[in-house]
C-alpha cells in the first residue's frame, strides 16, 4: 500500500492507502473530516468540493494518491478558530442553506470563485455555481450569500 502525505487544513498528514482510495474517502474515513459530503457518483453535485492547492476540486473525482504533497483545505479548515470565514457567515446571514448537505461544497466553491473573480454579479455567480447542485433553496439565497460575502471579502 503506498503512503500518501499531504497538508490538510494546515496539518501534515500521512497514511497508507490503497491506490483506489478516493480523496473524499481519505478525508472522510481516514481523517474523519465528515463535513465534505458525497451526493452523487458522476462528479456533478459538488457536495465534495475541497480546495487542492488553492483551486476548488471535486474530491470524489481525485485519488488520494493524486494529492501527494498537495495543500488541501476542507470546510473544517475555512474558519480561523472560532472566527468564521465571511462566506460561512454570509450563508447564515442570508439563509443560503436549508438541509445543509450541499452547503459545505457550495461554500468551498464560492470561496474559490470570489478569490478568482472580481465584480461578481448574479449571472456570473450563477454560472460559477454550475458544478454544485442544491435541491432545497432554489439557489436564490445562495447567490445572495455569495454576493454579500464577495463584497465583504473584496472589502
Amino acid at each position, binding site marked *: 500500500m503506498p503512503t500518501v502525505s499531504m497538508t490538510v487544513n494546515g496539518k501534515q498528514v500521512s497514511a497508507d492507502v490503497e*491506490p483506489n482510495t478516493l480523496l473524499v474517502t481519505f478525508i472522510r474515513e481516514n481523517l474523519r473530516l465528515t463535513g465534505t459530503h458525497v451526493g452523487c457518483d458522476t462528479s456533478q453535485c459538488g457536495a465534495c468540493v475541497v480546495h*487542492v492547492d488553492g483551486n*476548488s476540486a*471535486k474530491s470524489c*473525482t*481525485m485519488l488520494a*494518491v493524486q494529492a501527494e504533497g498537495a495543500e488541501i483545505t476542507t470546510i473544517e479548515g475555512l474558519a480561523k478558530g472560532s472566527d468564521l470565514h465571511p462566506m460561512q457567515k454570509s450563508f447564515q446571514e442570508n439563509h443560503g442553506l436549508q438541509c445543509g448537505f450541499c452547503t459545505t461544497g457550495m461554500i468551498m466553491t464560492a470561496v474559490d470563485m470570489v478569490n478568482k473573480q472580481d465584480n461578481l454579479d448574479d449571472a456570473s455567480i450563477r454560472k460559477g455555481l454550475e458544478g454544485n447542485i442544491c435541491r432545497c433553496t432554489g439557489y436564490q439565497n445562495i447567490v445572495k450569500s455569495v454576493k454579500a460575502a464577495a463584497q465583504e471579502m473584496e472589502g
Partner: protein
Amino acid sequence: MYDFDYKRPSTLDEAASLINEDSVLLAGGHTLLPTLKQRLAQPETLVDLSAIDSLRGVCPDGDKLAIGAMTTHAEVANKATIPALASLAGGIGDPQVRNRGTIGGSVANNDPAADYPAAVVGLNAVVNTNKRAISADDFFVDLFETALDEGEIITNVTFPTPDAAAYMKFDNPASRYAIVGVMVAKTSGGVRVAVTGAGPCVFRQSEMEAALSGDFSPRALENINVSADGLNSDIHASAEYRANLIKVLAKRAVAQING
C-alpha cells in the same frame, strides 16, 4: 473501483516505459475516474502524468500557441491568446472540472460530446505526441477512437492563430456536455467549420466552409440544408434537432466573428 497499481513517473520516457495493454494513462481523471468508479474498466495500472512538468503550460510560439497536454481547462481559459479557444475551454463542464481536466486527456479520449475536438479540428491544430505530429484532420477517427497508437502519449497541441474564430455550444441541460458545438474559424488555410456533439465524432461541415469562403456571413448559410443522416439521436435531442442546431450555432458563430 477495482484494485489497481498507481505510478507517477516524472519523465516522459519513464511514462512511456510503463505503458502496456493493462495500463491506462491518468491525466485530469475527470473521465477515467468516474468510469473506474462505475467499475466499467479494470486496468492493472494507472500511469499518472501529473508529475511530468514538460507536459504543462500555455506557450505562444510565433503565430502558434502550444498547449501542453496536462494543461488544465482553467489554465487554457485564462491564458490562451486565441479568444475562441479560451472561451471554449472556459465553458467546459464546471469550475471544478476545469480545474482538473486537461486538454490532453480530453483530446485523447475523443468523447463525441467533448468541446476540445471542435477546437482542434476547427483551428486546424497539430497534436504532438512522444512519437510524431498528427494533423487535426487525421487525429479523430471515430467514436472514442483516435489515431494514437498504443503507448503513444500526447505532449502538446499546437494551435495556429486564426484570423478570427468563434465557438458556439448548446449544452446538454443535464450533463453540460455539448449537444452540439460548432467552431467556425477563418484560418490561413481557409474557413473551417468543425462540429462536435452532433455525430459519433467531431467532423468538418464542408458545405458550410465552402459557402462561407465565398461570403462570410450568416446569410451564406441560410440555404444550406444540414442533413440529419448519421447524427446522434438520444433522449435529449433527435438527429433532426441536432441538424437544426448545427446551422443555428454556425450562423451565430459567424455573426459573432463579424461583430
